[in-house]
């Protein structure tokens, strides 16, 4: 059951990419982005309401911890732009490459308050397979 839910989460992410991409194609990338965030904001307010939980705000936290929403805007803009040109599956594979390399860099240098985990050279093997896979997806 847990495995099924996990795969279902992935399915939802691809469906979301298609929905957001369709909206951006029709209304423009920035208008779509604003609407997507408005609908998302209402949805999370409903979730908070259903869980009867109050919004917590901690002033002592560094301001950059609240900045992920700003980065999220770029995620949506980038995804919609790539969807228009490349569809869903190829940007997914390329995004996975970006995720892998970024995780490795954050871990290696211990950025963003993470515990440093030194880079293991064998990870080049995995990255190479990802790159070859992407090339196969694009060319064939």
């Amino acid at each position: 059951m847990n495995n099924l839910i996990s795969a279902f989460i992935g399915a939802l992410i691809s469906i979301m990419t298609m929905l957001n991409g369709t909206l951006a194609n029709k209304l423009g990338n920035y208008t779509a982005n604003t609407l997507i965030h408005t609908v998302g904001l209402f949805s999370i307010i409903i979730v908070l309401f259903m869980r009867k939980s109050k919004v917590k705000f901690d002033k002592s936290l560094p301001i950059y911890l609240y900045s992920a929403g700003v980065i999220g805007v770029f995620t949506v803009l980038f995804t919609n732009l790539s969807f228009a040109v490349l569809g869903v599956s190829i940007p997914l594979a390329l995004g996975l490459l970006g995720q892998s390399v970024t995780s490795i860099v954050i871990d290696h240098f211990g950025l963003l308050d993470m515990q440093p985990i030194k880079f293991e050279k064998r990870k080049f093997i995995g990255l190479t397979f990802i790159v070859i896979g992407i090339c196969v997806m694009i060319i064939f």
Partner: protein
Amino acid sequence: MFYIAILVSVMTGVSIVLARTINANLAKTIGLFSGTFFNFITGLLTSLIFIFFSKESLNMTNLDFSSVPIWAYLGGLVGVIVIVLSNHITPKISAFYLTLLIFIGQLFVGIIIDYFTLGELSIGKIFGGILVLFGLTYNLLLDKKKAV
């Protein structure tokens, strides 16, 4: 445009990991759902700034919102469902299987969507996707071994 889209796709991955890491640090203190609330607040403000400085704000009145099928407006809702489900499932399954299964779900539904929207069922995408999956699995196994 093709090469820009390739670069932008990779940058999507960079932005996802940056946001995910920052969000995890925020959620540790104020909880995931409060964190998500602030994500959408700051995200919405940023989107409004973008729209203000873009050409799209000039054409706003000409937009035909009814020409868009209603389901296309629900991406933000689906995003929140993804967050709620992930929060529910994370303590019940190892990060290794979670990451792999999410990717498998994304890949196969992605290929199906591409079949319907781009009108092509490409063997290359399936085979290439399996190679990507293999590379991902290999590196996740290295992480897993270290975590034990």
